[in-house]
């Protein structure tokens, strides 16, 4: 029987081989190749041969990090992500609170969910060009609407304004993603055991208290999951800034992905600079994800450590009491007590392990 089990183990390796080969060929090798190109002089359309930079291996990295366009792109990317993530998560949380609240019983939830999620499924490239047309000048639908409603007499050339351009991208991102975030958060809330909510209701907690003290702490992991995936997606934002205004006006909507693309596939085709830029973004993404997972992990460990400390404390107190008793009582009684103590100690360590 044992021999047979060993025989089956080889299928574990066998069935993983296709995945591993595809990963090595299409992910690992390209990453390493990208890293290597970052240290070379590879540029020019269609060039594939390269020489390593011998005088200053980090020249491309320095060039990218001191390039004002890259710095601007990095700032833009962070600003665009932050200002779409905050309203997105707040709106999603508000809708989650409303939709999962038993007392308000919102009707038509199914239709609302379908409609809120819809923008997420539409090709981002299409959305970018659609919004470019909607904000058209002199006669786009948005201008038409504003004039009809009497907000303005003459059409406004929206997209030459840097703030408006960024604002529209932030709006598009929020509009595309709040529905997705909401569906995920709702499923998280529905996963919480209903007994906890019943207990809160019995204790007389109102809606707001229930939300902040019961719902929120219980969906912490899902919130972190949303934060990390949104951050990584946001740092790679490409389709919408690329097609909405091609990074303009005056680089106001240039993101790092668009910068890297432009370096490599337009102008003088500087694959080496683009590769260095990619690696810088890769390192930033790795650091941020590690930090975020560490934050969550530390909190769990902290509570565990606190539990251990508490148990140790109570154990010490017990021990002291026992010693006092020991002094008072006779030897035969103490042996029984120590046995009980040993048992308790065993249970204590078990608890800690759990």
């Amino acid at each position, binding site marked *: 029987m044992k021999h047979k089990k060993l025989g*089956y*183990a080889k*299928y*574990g390796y*066998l*069935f*993983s081989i*296709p*995945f591993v080969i*595809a*990963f090595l060929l299409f992910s690992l*090798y*390209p*990453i390493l*190749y*990208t890293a290597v*190109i970052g240290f070379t002089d590879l540029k020019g359309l269609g060039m*594939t041969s390269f020489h390593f930079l011998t005088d200053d291996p980090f020249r491309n990295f320095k060039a990218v990090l001191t390039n004002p366009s890259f710095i601007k792109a990095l700032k833009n990317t962070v600003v665009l992500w932050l200002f779409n993530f905050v309203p997105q998560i707040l709106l999603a949380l508000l*809708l989650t609170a409303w939709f999962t609240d038993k007392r*308000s019983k919102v009707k*038509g939830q*199914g239709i609302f969910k*379908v*409609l*809120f*999620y*819809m923008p997420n*499924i*539409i*090709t981002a*490239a299409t*959305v970018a*060009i*659609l919004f470019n*047309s*909607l904000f058209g000048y002199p*006669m786009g639908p948005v*201008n038409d609407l504003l004039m*009809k409603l009497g907000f303005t007499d003459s059409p406004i050339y929206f997209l030459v304004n840097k703030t408006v351009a960024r604002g529209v991208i932030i709006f598009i991102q929020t509009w595309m993603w709040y*529905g*997705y975030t909401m*569906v*995920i958060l709702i*499923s*998280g809330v529905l996963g919480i055991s209903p007994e906890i909510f019943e207990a809160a209701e019995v204790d007389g907690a109102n809606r707001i208290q229930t939300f902040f003290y019961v719902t929120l702490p219980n969906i912490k992991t899902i919130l972190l*999951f949303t934060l*990390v995936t949104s951050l*990584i997606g946001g740092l*790679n934002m*490409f*389709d919408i800034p690329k*097609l909405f205004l091609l990074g303009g006006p005056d680089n106001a909507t240039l993101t790092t992905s668009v910068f*890297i693309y432009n370096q*490599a596939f337009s102008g003088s085709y500087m*694959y080496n600079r*683009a*590769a260095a830029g*990619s690696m810088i*973004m*890769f390192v930033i993404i790795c650091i941020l994800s590690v930090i975020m997972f560490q934050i969550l992990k530390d909190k769990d460990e902290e509570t565990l450590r606190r539990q251990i400390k508490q148990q140790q404390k109570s154990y010490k107190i017990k021990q002291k009491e026992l010693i006092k008793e020991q002094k008072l009582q006779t030897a035969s009684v103490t042996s029984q007590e120590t046995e009980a103590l040993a048992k308790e100690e065993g249970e204590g360590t078990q608890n800690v392990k759990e």
Partner: protein
Amino acid sequence: MLKNKENLALKIIIYIVCIFLAVLSIMPFWIMIVNATRSTTEIQQHAISLLPSNYAMNNLKILLGKSFNPARGFINSLIISVGATGLAVYFSSLTAYALVAYDWKLRQPFFSFIMAIMMIPAQVTMIGFYQMVYKIHMTNNLWMLILPAMASPSMVFFMRQYLQPSLSMEIVQSARIDGAGEFLIFNRIVLPIMKPAIATQAIFSFVSSWNNLFTPLVLLTDQKKYTMPIMVSLLRGDIYKTEYGSVYLGLTLTVLPLIIVYLILSKYIIAGVALGSVKG
């Protein structure tokens, strides 16, 4: 009494906000579809109209007279999305089965490894990938957009989480006694068990492959190989600068299939999003 009034007020606010957001979801697409049927002069006079006009055919003629070829883009996108989804779903299930059913030495390290590489975005590998593909003269080969889907770490993770509690080893054992080989067991017994997970993951894999702009934009230079998102990006070009109606029609042609399929499958898609978060 007061509490009821408060409740009613809150309810009214909830419905107002929800209806506003619903309108916000529909409006851009509605304007797009209506303007696709209107002439450029009509759009220039009044860019918003709730009622369609009858210039759709005219717009279509102008649209197709230039480099925009939605049928070609549709077919290319379909080939890539179907191929990539099929490979991703099959090999992710196979890898997940290897992780769940067999007791091998590297199982745990391999799983940790998959978790670690889950978050690597395709963008950071692109320069190396492009150089590699260019060197072997495959830049306009659709296989280069399909094959990488064989290694989809996040899908493997999802499939494993699904399979772990739902696979009973007794069924596998009895199939072994009946003389079935391991590969046959996977194809005939395990794949059917995984159907719900496969359906969910297939939808998302298909949509993300269909909507992908970055990789095809980097690799494809041949107009005959252009995918739908690249076709869309052509509408941004100068040749359509004054043909508003045609641009809206082009956008509509790319969006309409997606919206129709979405509305048909919406129930499963929403459930799938929810499932992915709980399991993931």
